[in-house]
């Protein structure tokens, strides 16, 4: 076994294979062990998983007035937001904070799932705390 691994690592092709396979085996593990946003199933080969059925209603208020996200972001981003992907929602918050300086951008998502209780994220000023 050790001889096989040594032989594999003795060529650049072998090292490439080793790194590739290791990354592919371990990267999805990141979703289960370390990812704080379970809505974000990228790089984890979670095709058609129950999480795919999650639906999140996004609410944004700028200085406590409801904002129309349809006039700010393309609908494809809103679709991703409706799946609750934090990285996109946080970027949306950051964008709105830049566009409306000195305003309070309150962003929250209310998510429903097939296999767990509904959850709410955010609800605070994203310009102060830019993470969900």
């Amino acid at each position, binding site marked *: 076994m050790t*001889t096989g691994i040594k032989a594999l690592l003795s060529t650049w092709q072998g090292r490439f294979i080793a790194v590739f396979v290791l990354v592919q085996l371990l990267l999805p593990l990141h979703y289960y062990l370390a990812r704080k946003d379970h809505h974000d199933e990228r790089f984890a080969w979670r095709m058609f998983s129950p999480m795919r059925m999650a639906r999140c209603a996004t609410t944004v208020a700028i200085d406590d007035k409801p904002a129309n996200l349809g006039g700010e*972001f393309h609908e494809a981003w809103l679709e991703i937001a409706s799946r609750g992907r934090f990285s996109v929602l946080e970027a949306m918050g950051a964008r709105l904070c830049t566009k409306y300086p000195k305003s309070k951008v309150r962003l929250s998502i209310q998510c429903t799932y097939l*296999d767990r209780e509904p959850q709410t994220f955010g609800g605070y000023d994203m310009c102060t705390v830019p993470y969900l």
Partner: protein
Amino acid sequence: MAKQGNRSNAESRQARRAEARKAERSGGEAPAARVPAKPTSEPIPEPKFWFGFEVSWAKLVLARFVIFTVLAIDSVLQISHAPRYGAGGFNVAQVPGLDAIGPGRLGFEVGQLVCAYVFILVAFGVATRFLIPIGAAIYGWLYFGSQLDSYQHHYLVVLVLLIACFIPWQRPDGAEPATRIRTWGVRLLLVQLGILYVWAAISKMSPAWLDGRTITGQITGPLRSVIEDSVGFKTAARFALLTELVLAVVVWMRPAWFIALPVGLAFHVGILASGLEIGLFAYLMLAFYVFVIPDRALVWLATRAPLRGARWAIRAARISNPVAAASAVLLAVTLGVLLARFTRFESAFEIAIVLSVVPITLLIGSRLRGGTFVVPWLALAHVVAIALWLVLDRTTTTAIDYYRFWGGNARRLGEPAVAEAAYRRLTEIAPNEPNGHFQLGRILIDGPDEDAGLRELREAQRLEPRRARAWIAEAQWLARKGRTAEAIEKAQEAVLSEPTHPSARELLDTLSGKKSASPAAPARDDDGE
């Protein structure tokens, strides 16, 4: 001893690289100077699992053609998504820090057209060692540059293209269909598929999948009624998980390919019938199953008369005269530009002109290095690649959707001038599509060129006599102008054309004074994605 072995391995690798470079210099499907087929008697470096893996040349050619043709088609069909990119100046990349280098609308469109072109050349076996890395780099940029199209499908394509850079797709010297080609790249690709299946199965090991709830909410196609009327969703869900676990084990193990082939094909055909919106993902997965078809079946097929004749014709069709070769390539380039002229994708014509450099460069490069390209094959690949743009443009709504979505985005994001330009182009390329005329009319009627706006709305009314929206738009405009009698007339037309439209009746009642004005119900825009 070990050092000696390593040195001889290194020398052998150097020799092989030199031979491969020599072969690459001659390029094409059947160049004059070819890398000798690696004799199967050559000692297999350890570990044999990777470096002793062989497939027949017939299988490699078929896989190359099928996989890269599917990728090319997929690339062209992706163009309808281009307007998302860069819309509103917002982007989130797959990897933090890359937001700024994400593609814009035009960059995405051009990138996909170039990818489609490159993939067809690769499918034809042209300069694969150069073109696959180029295609992989462009596709990688499009994928990693934005989360907009972040399905697993796109991620898999990135990985497959990376692996494909290391697969010897070009024909070794004297290779025949039965010649064994040693390729760790194909083994890695199959192992990658195994990894994909095992993680996909793990993601389904939850009560919400196992009791059938998830699959019930996802399947919509003809498969839904089949499942409902037979085993039920709970059993189907468990069977899908079991199938993925089986495929995870058998897809990369040659002795188990007799299981992988029928199970994998049935599984992915089933996904095709499930109505899931996953683009060409199932087709791509099916294409990978070429690798698990028994070699002897493909060799048998490749040695039948029609394919034997085709192979002979390809190898025989050489043009050694430089003037004749240049003329053939110039003819192909001209034909390519002409085909692109009739393609309705934005900038396709200009891109085709730039891509003309590819066959010319390959020919010149080959000549300078003393090789001979199979010129007709190269020319054919170039023409087919651009013909694919045209065929997919004219047989699908990709180009129409591109302008429709572009106009819709711009309109919603408050860029009327951009929206007007997109809708103008839409009405040019698809004059019988009512949506372009309606949206253009709506924009123009609120600007200085009201007459042009009215003309567009009336064209929409003519093209969609059973929809009220263009009549409503004209009636509202007339009402704003104080021409109430004419507005009522148009509102009546709206009700007649689409009696169930919520706004049509309300507008008529309001204009007739039967009801006080209330906020209009939102119109169906038909320009959203």
